[in-house]
């Protein structure tokens, strides 16, 4: 179901609705966590990506099921866009044995190898070289896969990011670096950490292609990602995409940052005006690609899927305590 040959202007109605569905799915999933978190049954930190959904949606539209993604602490959306099973995710957040990581990972450590989601790291930048390693594996095996590495703006300050990008350029690996620049690392605004806000400039300086885009415009993401992923797949080497966006919720948990004084409320209000989903909704209905009713119906279907995921999670069992000592090491099954 890759759409390699279509640019945004050629997308069919179904394609457009697929993009919309992915964004909405992420949004509703995250909002469900906001609702449920106060129950204190999900006993792990959650880093929500509400406001940032367009990036993962636009990128994943070009990925095959067996292409790889690597991501970070804020990984729910990346995984969902890649087709992750929401029940397994939710069960993981609830610490259940049916969770995607058997309850050992929590929200920061999610996986679904069948979908090419190879595990997320909560060490900022930690997943970047791993993604490059997966791309190296593909280039040696010539398996035609592409790897996408998602990271925040903060990760672009870690040395390992540069080392990895340089290596990927040098070896012309099939990998795309997607930097979700939401202007903050925890509560530190970019200005306190960067000498420049143009992370994309690092691409050419390290021999990679690059692009700087509006990360709230799903079609802009779609087109840029299309080019980058095609480049990667065709031996053209890595691209660094900087996509600007904003996270609506706190760094961690369902709260809002202006309430604790770590950013101005105005800023949030302004960015909410730029909601990627509302904007795309408007476009779809204006262009006649969908009616408001269709989109509302879509929302209900997704809400039911998510409710089912929550039921699954809540109904599942906690891991047996003797699971504490399993899978520390791989035991050869040969």
């Amino acid at each position: 179901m890759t759409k390699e040959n279509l640019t945004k202007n050629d997308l069919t109605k179904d394609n457009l609705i697929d993009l919309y569905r992915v964004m909405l799915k992420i949004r509703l999933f995250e909002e469900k966590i906001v609702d449920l978190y106060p129950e204190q049954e999900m006993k792990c930190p959650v880093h929500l990506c509400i406001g940032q959904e367009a990036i993962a949606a636009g990128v994943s539209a070009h990925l095959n099921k067996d292409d790889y993604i690597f991501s970070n602490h804020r990984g729910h959306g990346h995984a969902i866009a890649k087709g992750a099973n929401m029940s397994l995710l939710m069960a993981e957040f609830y610490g259940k044995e049916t969770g995607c990581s058997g309850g050992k990972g929590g929200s920061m450590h999610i996986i679904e190898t069948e979908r090419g989601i190879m595990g997320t790291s909560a060490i900022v930048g930690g997943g970047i070289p791993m993604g490059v390693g997966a791309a190296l594996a593909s280039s040696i095996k010539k398996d035609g896969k592409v790897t996408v590495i998602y990271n925040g703006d903060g990760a672009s300050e870690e040395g390992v990011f540069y080392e990895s990008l340089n290596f990927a350029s040098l070896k012309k690996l099939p990998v795309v670096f997607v930097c979700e620049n939401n202007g903050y690392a925890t509560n530190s605004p970019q200005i306190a950490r960067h000498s420049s806000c143009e992370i994309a400039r690092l691409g050419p300086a390290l021999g990679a292609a690059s692009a700087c885009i509006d990360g709230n415009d799903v079609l802009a993401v779609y087109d840029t990602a299309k080019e980058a992923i095609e480049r990667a797949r065709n031996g053209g080497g890595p691209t660094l995409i900087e996509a600007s966006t904003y996270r609506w919720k706190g760094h961690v948990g369902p709260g809002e940052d202006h309430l604790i004084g770590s950013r101005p409320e105005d800023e949030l209000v302004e960015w909410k005006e730029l909601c990627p989903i509302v904007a795309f909704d408007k476009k779809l209905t204006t262009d006649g690609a969908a009616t408001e009713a269709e989109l509302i119906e879509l929302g209900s279907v997704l809400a039911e899927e998510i409710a089912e995921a929550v039921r699954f999670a809540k109904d599942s069992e906690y891991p047996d305590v003797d699971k504490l000592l399993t899978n520390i090491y791989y035991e050869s099954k040969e």
Partner: protein
Amino acid sequence: MPWTKIYGDKSAFEKAAAESDVPLRGITYAEALREAQAQLLRDDERVFVFGEGIDDPGGVFGSTKDLHKEFGDERVFDTPLAENALTGIALGAAVSGMRPILVHMRVDFVPLTLDQILNHAAKWSYMFDGKVHAPMIVRSVIGRGWGSAAQHSQNLHALFTHIPGIRVIMPATPYDAKGLLMAAVEDGNPVIFIEHRWLYGHMGHVPEDPYTIPIGKGIVRREGTDCTVVAISQQAAEAVKAADILAEEGINIEIIDPRTLRPLDTDLIVGSVEKTGRLVVADNGWKYGGIGAEIAARICENAFGALKAPIERINVPECPTPASHILEAEYYPGIEDIVAAVKKVVQYGHA
């Protein structure tokens, strides 16, 4: 002494304060850390404090809260996410005459900096035969609980204790947090100063005036005759509670909190074990090559024949921290483990 005591909770401290003849000033561990840094910044212009997010409203769980407002952005500042460089920057500033305090919110991020700690800071004095020295502090916090999981709740102190040239300090009380941090800055050497998140809310007596506590000196938290329990950092608080339970059964443990792990107060531990003949080491770190191993070896070397029972090491199991609270509860040792271990060594040979 009010300053050697560990108060399990705020009300315990308040009760003690009310009953005390002398006035006891009580603040939390977090406040004690903040006060130490504020006084250092006030009294020593060479001191500066920096790290990721230290000037945010939370202020590293309160321990750096609003310091930047009091001392200005030049001496208290937020940084990029670049742990390794930051550590080298601290070192470079230290050899150029400053006394930097670098803060990492989690000790899990310190492995990113091991090259600067092990290959540079720890060696800069020796490698140049004392022509320079490296008075820098790395403050770091151990996370625990709420599904922090494998990468956000590790107890990595043993890695650092293996390195000659640095000091490793782990305060367990507000009094020690302040006194040892001030001593660390005065000391003139690279110091890894590891705090425990679960101690941040603990309250205790802390004098307002600046003071230091000698580095390398442990402390007896409770005297006893039946078994020595060496308890590290947050385990010292667990041990105090275990002692009460054991006392009810007529077992009196002697609790030693080494406070500094490198250098380690061998004499204090050996002396106690020679008296009690039994040893339990309670530590939240991993067992293999952990602090308990080193203590066991020193007992073998320095108190041969003193033991009436095998040493018991209490640790987290040899695996990463799991996220699910069910597994987490099983993962961390606590009061019950100490009680059980002490009983085991006390009953050794009597079964």
